[in-house]
């Protein structure tokens, strides 16, 4: 135990003794920071190095090849890139309006008494592991989709050509819907945080001018929190892009470009997780390459999201989101 030194302390003159523990402390902090930075760099470099053989043998264009057939030396990633984008698109197209509406309801409409409880519940649901959502999707939701939802959509919207083929239950649509349920808490929690910090005087000013509640929301609250909501949206997108097991469980895992929303498909993460165990050589390197593509997309999307959330000046919102 070191004691606090007062200016009257006899040790004051001995600068070395005084500064040593502090240097040690600063050094230790700097060291941990260096370790963390080094880990992050190692992470990126390791994936790049392991993906390099695939780029060397297959050329850069292999990423956009349309066929994945390792026995014939074909490692095209296009079906998986498209699958990832399609599933994510379904999820965010559903999650954006529903998430924003829910956030508005939680921030302004729900009675004060239940508001904190309901908000906490939504935040807690964000912590439920994705594998649990996947299990629910596969066992509970897939039969419902096969027997009810997909026949209905086919009869109602079959003319669009989006619902051709047999009703499997599993496939792009189910994967998108499961992702939608999963990213919803993220979307809601951050949007709500951003909505409630809009200055009260602006809201009250608008109300005093005779604006209805919706007008206040649309003309004052939403414009003021546009950047933050966009950040929430982007973060949710990032989460959807990178989700692995829940999607792998319900998408049907087929290495072909999907021709309808009911088709089985695959995403980059599901490709990796399904083929990792049996792969060697070029195929393994190609999987690392797929991981690198995913990592780059993930870094870009998350950087954009952080920047957007930051620029509204709510740093703490960003932290809770990550969990």
């Amino acid at each position, binding site marked *: 135990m070191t004691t*606090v*030194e007062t200016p009257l302390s006899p040790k004051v003159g001995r600068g070395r003794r005084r500064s040593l*523990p502090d240097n*040690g402390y600063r050094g*230790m*902090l700097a060291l*941990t*920071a260096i*370790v*963390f*930075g080094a880990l*992050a760099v190692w992470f990126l470099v*390791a*994936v790049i190095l*392991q993906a390099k053989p695939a780029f060397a043998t297959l050329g850069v264009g292999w990423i956009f090849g349309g066929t994945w057939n390792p026995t014939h030396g074909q490692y095209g990633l296009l079906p998986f890139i498209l699958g990832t984008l399609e599933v994510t698109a379904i999820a965010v197209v559903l999650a954006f309006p*529903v*998430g*924003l*509406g*829910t956030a508005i*309801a939680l921030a302004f*409409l729900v009675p004060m008494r239940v508001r904190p409880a309901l908000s*906490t519940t939504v935040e807690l649901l964000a*912590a*439920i*592991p*994705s*594998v*649990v959502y*996947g*299990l*629910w999707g596969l066992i509970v939701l897939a039969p419902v989709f096969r027997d009810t939802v997909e026949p209905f959509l086919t009869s109602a919207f079959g003319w669009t050509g989006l619902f051709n083929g047999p009703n499997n239950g599993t496939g792009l649509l189910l994967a998108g819907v499961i992702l939608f349920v999963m990213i919803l*808490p993220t979307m*809601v929690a951050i949007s709500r945080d951003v909505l409630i910090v809009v200055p009260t005087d602006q809201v009250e000013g608008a109300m005093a001018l*005779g604006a209805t*509640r*919706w007008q206040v*929301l*649309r003309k004052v609250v939403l414009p003021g929190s546009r950047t933050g909501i966009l950040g929430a949206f982007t*973060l949710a997108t*990032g989460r959807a892009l*990178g989700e*692995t*097991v829940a999607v792998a469980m319900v998408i049907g895992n087929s290495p072909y470009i999907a021709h309808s929303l009911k088709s089985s498909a695959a995403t980059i*993460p599901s490709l*990796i*997780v399904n083929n*990792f165990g049996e792969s060697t050589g070029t195929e393994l390197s190609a*999987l*690392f390459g797929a991981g690198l593509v*995913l*990592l780059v997309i993930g*870094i870009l999307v*998350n*950087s954009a999201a*952080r920047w957007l959330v930051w620029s509204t000046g709510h740093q703490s919102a*960003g*932290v809770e989101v*990550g*969990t």
Partner: protein
Amino acid sequence: MTVLIDTPPDPIVERRRAVQAAAASSLKRRKLGSRVALTVCWLFLAIAIVPLVAVVVYVISKGLPAWNVDFFTKSTTPEGVPGGGVWNAIVGTAVITVIGTAVAVPLGLLCGLFLTESDGRIAAALRFTADVMTGIPSITVGIFGYIAIVHNFGYSGLAGSFAVGFIMLPVIIRAGETAFRGVPRSLNEAAMALGARRATIARKIVVPTALPGVITGVLLAIARGLGETAPLLLTIFGNQYLQWNPTKTMAALPPLIYQYSSQPYADLVQIAWGAALLLMVIVLVLSIGSRLLAVYLRRERR
């Protein structure tokens, strides 16, 4: 307004009447629009709540029947052999998470302290890195664990700990920094005025004051690490038998749920539900517990 005497219309009154009528109709229209829009918001709230509640209800109702003594005491049986439990997976998850936490928490908190005390370009870069890393696809961390550990030493529980710890690290860093930054400046300055060293201030002022926030952050990070599946699928390989030694291949709850969910045997799917319930309960207890603990510690202080 009724006109009592038949006089020529007063243009001012006429004008006022017109304005009032327009205002009334505008108000009606705006109120209707407002009601419609807000109803849609309520509807979306319902749409959001229903599936989320359904997940929880289903997991409880399907998972509870799987819970019995065997479930918590026996290891998994080979496919087709009835009975068995998930004791090996519980042990695996516990060992992997404890080791990952034991490394990630001190490293992450010290890093958070570093970010709190420095405001340079390097700190900003690290802060941004940590922020981005909280959101990167977890499967890529699994790939990293595979390259860094499995490539050299083979599949093991430690490789899983490495991946899980790596996922927890940025969460702990940012949660720690947020908690440390919440410590009032006046406390810091008072200690400095007394001539305390930075290390002493950190140890005696910053860390104790920020403790509720730190504990919340750490528990949430653990909850996150517990549920990670994809990284473990690439690193621990799985093990049918009970294994306490983290240098060997291990079983864990999330990969077990993933693998059993697509099995054609009803009893394995049943075990998957039981494991999902267990995982969900642990994660929710940690999340709720962290909030309650934070509230309790803050109240205790006053």
